[in-house]
């Protein structure tokens, strides 16, 4: 992949990720998050991980964020826009973020494999959908089934909660 494209999509992801926090308008925040997801999925796809990339768009940008937007639009936006910034909280947040950033830089600078350039993976034309499917149903079958049960429980819970009268 050309580094030019990498920088475009990486910057897109990071800038719009920051815009999620900076924007005062919740709808603008939600849409920034969508663009950030799209940038992230482009990064996945440029690494030949088409399946992960497209699922990123399908699940997060296409379904989860639409629901978010749906809820946000029903809220009173004025209250959020007029809220004043709590400077103490802001300073605390920036300090924590900076501490994490410094920590990451320190760890990466001492981590030898991070400085090496890896040789390209052999056979980049492998069918990643097939690989992920085969792994899910062989090595990771039990976790997969447990996740399935979890989703089923959540679904039943939602149906129960949204029933008008509880018995």
């Amino acid at each position: 992949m050309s580094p030019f494209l990498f920088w475009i999509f990486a910057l897109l992801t990071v800038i719009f990720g920051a815009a999620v926090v900076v924007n005062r308008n919740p709808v603008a925040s939600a849409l920034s998050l969508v663009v950030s997801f799209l940038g992230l999925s482009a990064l996945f796809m440029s690494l030949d991980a088409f399946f992960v990339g497209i699922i990123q768009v399908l699940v997060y940008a296409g379904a989860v964020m639409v629901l978010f937007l749906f809820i946000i639009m029903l809220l009173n936006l004025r209250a959020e826009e007029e809220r004043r910034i709590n400077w103490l909280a802001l300073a605390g947040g920036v300090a924590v973020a900076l501490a994490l950033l410094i920590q990451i830089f320190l760890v990466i600078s001492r981590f030898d494999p991070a400085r090496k350039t890896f040789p390209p993976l052999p056979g980049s034309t492998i069918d990643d959908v097939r690989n992920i499917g085969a792994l899910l149903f062989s090595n990771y079958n039990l976790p997969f089934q447990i996740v399935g049960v979890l989703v089923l429980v959540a679904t039943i819970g939602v149906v129960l909660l949204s029933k008008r009268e509880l018995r």
Partner: protein
Amino acid sequence: MDSLFIITSLLKILGILFVVILPMVSYAVYAERRVSAFIQDRLGPNRVGPAGLFQPIADMFKLLLKEDFTPRAANTFYYWLAPCLAVMPAIITIAVVPFGSTLFGVPMVIADVNVGILFVFAIASLGVYGIVIGGWASNSKYPFLGGIRSSAQMLSYELSLGLAVVPVFLVVGSLRLTSVVRYQIEHGWFIAPFVGDWANPWKWLLAIPMIISFLVFMIAMFAETNRLPFDLPEAEQELAGGYNTEYSSMKFALYFLGEYAAMITGSAVIVTLFFGGWHFPGIPDGSHGWIFGLINIAVFFAKVAVMIFFFMWVRWTFPRFRYDQLMRLGWLFFFEIALVNIFLVAAIIPFYRS
């Protein structure tokens, strides 16, 4: 990446967009008016040019010259952004659909990715943003209701859409759309499997869930493209026009184009999945000469045109559903049918393959 690949890809993108899709969109609007007129025993637009064929061009000038009005209370940035968001996903989707076999040895698909159908769903699911943002940014009651209706409706029917297509991939064994077409050439179209292994009774049994799958997919596609009988987001009688009420001039036209472009790409996906794509019995593929390559492309778009005609026929035949009926139909009927259908196909496949 060699330069030949880039040049052919660019030619394919420009060709499919400016020679096929955009003219098709504008003439789909004209066709809609003529078909509706025919169904209602009227004449329809027939004044501009022979049989009214230049009507889309006249419409374009009319829309461009209309006053482009932005309401004062609207959120201007999003108000301008929304129509673009409504058009783009519909057009991007066509990138993975194989619209022909080969022409001069170049495969007639813009991006033959191995997640073909997931790409279609992912990009199509982004189409809802144009409608929701448009309804919200107008800062007006009826467009807002239209946007809310649209997001709920599209999310609900995406489930049926996604589940209805699973049987196709269980049978084919790949998400790549060119493989789906390739399989249908060898085994017959999913909707009419009259080619290859006649003696296998499981094949005929398999055809039944495939047809159910096709019906669910098509009906969900009506809801996904906001077409009647599921055009609740733009119900004129209830919402004064729905999400595009506050839009005028070319921005309104973009919404219109987006709807028709979504219908065309939806038809193209249906044709690819269930009607054998560019294949027609007796016509060889593009490796036998460029003339056959062109014929394959023509066959594909002829099938798409038939599908679009069907969309229009349905629109002018059925009344609109009520909103609760629409939701009940989606969640309690199509969702279950599609789910059971998957189990049915999965149960038949081992016998079919053995």
